């Protein structure tokens, strides 16, 4: 390895270290956004006696989209490990599956949870105007969905670049950033799902 | 060390004491509370503000005097343009002192503040409830227990502890009679409470103290504090 190349690797490592710190600081910042939404949920979803309540929602939808999102995180991890070990095909396939599952999650949220598209076999939906239940559900899932959409866009960009051999074993910060972002969005859902679907007495 | 600090400390110390008194006097003139103490709560709050003014005067004098003294005594005189100051960059004892002493002062003022708060919000035995309703941009009052009627002026007996049970129809408002000192917001959807005991007979003005839209500045109502017998007569008048 020439001295110049070694220098370039060193520069890349320094830059990646800074990038990584920046990314985590960004997550730290976002913590306050999602935390604010969670606090809103626990402040508004209480009855007169101060008991925590929740709306009656279709538990199957919640469980399925959660499983789909968790599974996508597994493939995202596979994808990152693959590129770090130079297995390019593996990397692209896993990334593709992650993106696909992300889209399935989004469709699940939009069609079944929000009911934006009318389907004959779904009867009743809470809308955004339905009091605090509607406001909080749409506020939380909406903000989360915006992050998932960004994440899917990120995956598409990384996938396209991956096909053009932009990433190597040593240099794949783009993949790493995409992966930790995806895991982060996933992690947020792990807190949101029980807050919306599980905690408190169900009220109709 | 070139400077005789002991002498400087002495002069500055004397000046701090003098200026504490001077600033206190200036602040007393600059912060004129309304002359009428119209409620049992007024005196306690005025005293508390007075105590804080002393704190402002004392701490203000301390910093301003040392700063002003340094400006005069430690200025670079002609011929000293290239000179450097005395070399010292810290003193643990001092730092700890001016961390701990303010901490103690804060604790004292915290205790005083809590006591006064407890005093001005304490429930009384024989409270009379008045229902206050705020809406853009007027006030309505009801007297539960005295009959079914609503008024646009507030009439209450003197020396009678009041429990104001307040609600807002449209947006936030705030109940404030300057002479009574205390203040409380009215919030749509919840009932807020304010305790006050008028002690001065007279005519006062209720002003909305929370921006509530176009005519917020003019959201006023007359408040009359009257003798008990006048109040009873007024109630009878309303019932007719």
């Amino acid at each position, binding site marked *: 390895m020439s001295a110049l190349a070694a220098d370039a690797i060193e520069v890349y490592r320094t830059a990646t270290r800074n990038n990584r710190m920046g990314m985590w600081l960004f997550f730290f910042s976002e913590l*306050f956004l999602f935390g*604010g939404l969670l606090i809103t949920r626990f402040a508004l979803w209480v009855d007169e006696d101060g008991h925590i309540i929740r709306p009656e929602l279709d538990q199957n939808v919640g469980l399925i989209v959660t499983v789909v999102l968790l599974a996508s995180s597994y493939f995202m991890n596979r994808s990152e490990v693959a590129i770090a070990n130079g297995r390019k095909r593996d990397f692209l396939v896993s990334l593709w599956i992650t993106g696909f599952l992300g889209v399935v999650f989004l469709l699940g949220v939009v069609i079944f949870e929000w009911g934006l598209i009318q389907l004959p076999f779904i009867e009743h939906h809470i809308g955004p105007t339905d009091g*605090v239940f509607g406001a909080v559900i749409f*506020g939380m899932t909406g903000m989360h969905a915006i992050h998932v959409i960004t994440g899917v866009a990120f995956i598409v960009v990384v996938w396209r670049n991956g096909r053009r051999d932009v990433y190597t074993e040593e240099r794949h910060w783009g993949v790493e950033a995409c992966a930790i972002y995806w895991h982060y969005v996933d992690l947020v859902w792990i807190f949101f799902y029980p807050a919306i679907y599980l905690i408190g007495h169900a009220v109709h | 060390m070139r400077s005789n600090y002991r002498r400087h400390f002495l002069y500055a110390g004397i000046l701090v004491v003098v200026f504490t008194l001077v600033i206190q006097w200036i602040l007393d003139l600059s912060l004129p509370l309304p002359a009428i103490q119209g409620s049992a709560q007024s005196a306690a709050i005025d005293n508390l503000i007075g105590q804080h003014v002393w704190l402002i005067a004392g701490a203000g004098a301390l910093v301003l005097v040392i700063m002003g003294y340094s400006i005069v005594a430690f200025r670079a005189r002609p011929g000293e343009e290239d000179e450097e100051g005395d070399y010292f*960059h810290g003193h643990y004892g001092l730092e700890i002192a001016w961390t701990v002493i303010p901490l103690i002062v804060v604790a004292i003022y915290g205790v005083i*503040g809590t006591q006064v708060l407890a005093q001005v919000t304490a429930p009384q035995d024989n409270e009379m409830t008045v229902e206050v309703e705020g809406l853009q941009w007027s006030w309505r009052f009801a007297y539960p227990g005295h009959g079914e009627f609503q008024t646009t002026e507030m009439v209450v007996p003197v020396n009678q502890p009041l429990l104001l049970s307040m609600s807002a129809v449209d947006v936030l408002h705030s109940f404030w009679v300057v002479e009574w000192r205390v203040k409380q917001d009215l919030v749509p959807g919840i009932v807020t409470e304010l305790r006050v005991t008028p002690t001065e007979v007279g005519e006062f003005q209720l002003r909305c103290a929370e921006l509530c839209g176009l005519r*917020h500045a003019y959201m006023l109502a007359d408040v009359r504090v009257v003798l008990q017998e006048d109040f009873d007569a007024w109630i009878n008048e309303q019932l007719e």
Partner: protein
Amino acid sequence: MLMQLGLTRGLIYQAAGTVLGMVVAMVWRLLAGMELWDQEVVFVVGGLVGGFSFMWGVGAIDDWLEWCRGKATPLVHGPPRDKPAWTRYFSTDYNHKVIGIQYSVTSLLMLMIGGSFALIFRAELAQADLQFLGIGMYNKLIGLHGWAVIAAILLGVGGMANYLVPLMIGAEDMAFPRLNAFAFWINVPGALLLLASAFLGGFDAGWTAYPPLSTQGSVGYQFLFLAIYFVGLSSILGSLNLLVTILTMRPKGMDLFRIPIFCWAVLATSLIQLTATQAIGTAFLMGLSERALGMGFFDPEGGGNPILFQHIFWFYSHPAVYVFVLPGLGIISELLPVFSRKPLFGYRWIALSSLAIALVGFLVWGHHMFTSGYSQYLRIPFMIATLLVAVPTGVKFFSWVATMWGGRLRFPTPMLFTLGAISVFLLGGLTGPILATVASDLYLHDTYFVVGHFHATLFGGFVFPFCAAIYFWFPKITGRMYNETLGKLHFYIMTPAFWLMSIGQMTVGTMGMRRRIVDYDPTLGGGLIEARHLETTIAAFLIGLSILIMIYNLVTSAEIGVRAPANPWRSRSPEWQIPSPVPEHSFAAPLQVVGEPYDYGLEEEYVVMDESQAGHTQAH
């Protein structure tokens, strides 16, 4: 020529983007079977698309778009090759010094716009009754004044931090230069939306925009919410950048307790901006969606709670106050040793007190809401926490006067402003505990006393130190000295005028003058209230005049001022060890720290340049 400027392109793109966004929203509504026109939704989508179109037009995302296409873009520093050098100040440029100046100039501009709004309604308040300003106009101007100057302060803080931090720690640039440019430019569409809201009916609930009033008013609120979203995004990204820069890009030997003290202030500030800003974003987003989509977060009809907004809002907006003042306090700590010719007294205590203020600042938001109707008992912990802020603030004051004690003080304009800042911030700080104590706040809350208090803290914590910083670093930025006589004139007009104004505001407040009213009862304060208001108005106009003198001084001195030497103040800080004005690549060689930053009176240096490494620039 004009079309070559990124700014012009950005503005055109923003206009086009706004229209496009509105059309898209309408078409979407039509396709979804809704009525074509819903101003709330249409303006929100338009404003949002317009804002990001501006960023595209100005060129702030060009490199990132290239990255998305898998192309690496080298970071080129220096003036544009095919255009005059001055155009870089109106286009996307990645040099932190250019960005710092862009921030600062925009800040001064917004400060003057915001100040002018204040002068208009101050003139109205000079007498009781209505004179020339309608009630509705007054209610809109107060909110607009508030947000315009808050944006100005955030920009000014960003300006000082961006220009100074890399120079002070001897870094070539910020950690993320492109993000830095993005964070600046996003303020421009934000500011435009803010000012444009005035043409959509404005927002008449004051800068705090409390619901339900804010969810009922005109569509101007939506532009306010979007504007603050953009400005907040700038805060978050800018602070993230500063944190990484300070934490990772220091030269050899500069441990955290050897950085110039201003960087500590920026560190503490950035921690607040990074986190708390999300809260106001959340609060305003809820307000926005309640208006646009009918999501009833704050609507009591469906179980919503108006007080929740206040909690989230103040969770940002109280720490935000420390964002406004901590950098200014850092400037005071930075300048005092230079002009006292003495080491900074208790460096570590001052550094950590900034951090302490920032952290305690997260636990005190409830003191804005003592009368709001939340739990009675919670008011006491909020009172105690708020009073505790006095302790680290006191440490700063005492350390400052101890720094001056025994020095050899000199009084050029920057030092005068530093002293002015201390005195004014003292007034603001000391009037804090009286408001922090619940019982006295029950009287003073929402009166002009509060107005006097926070104007004193913001002038003492931002405006005065900002002026000091401008005069102090003017030679380093332009290579020329400012006019000392005009600088002193500015100081000797502004300081007494400010004292008069601020104390005047407090006086009418204790007399019983409410905040945010266009008209007041002239019988208050024994009939003396009108005279106090007149004085306050005159003082406010004098402050405006003094700012104009400063602008004149800066503009003319940049052209005809005396050439400045590299280090006119004999400062030890790194930025004064390089030529004035600062060259494109600030440091010819990497720095090495060999001493303490404020050891005035000692022979040894703070930093030296490692000449053996000359030409080796840090990479990104």
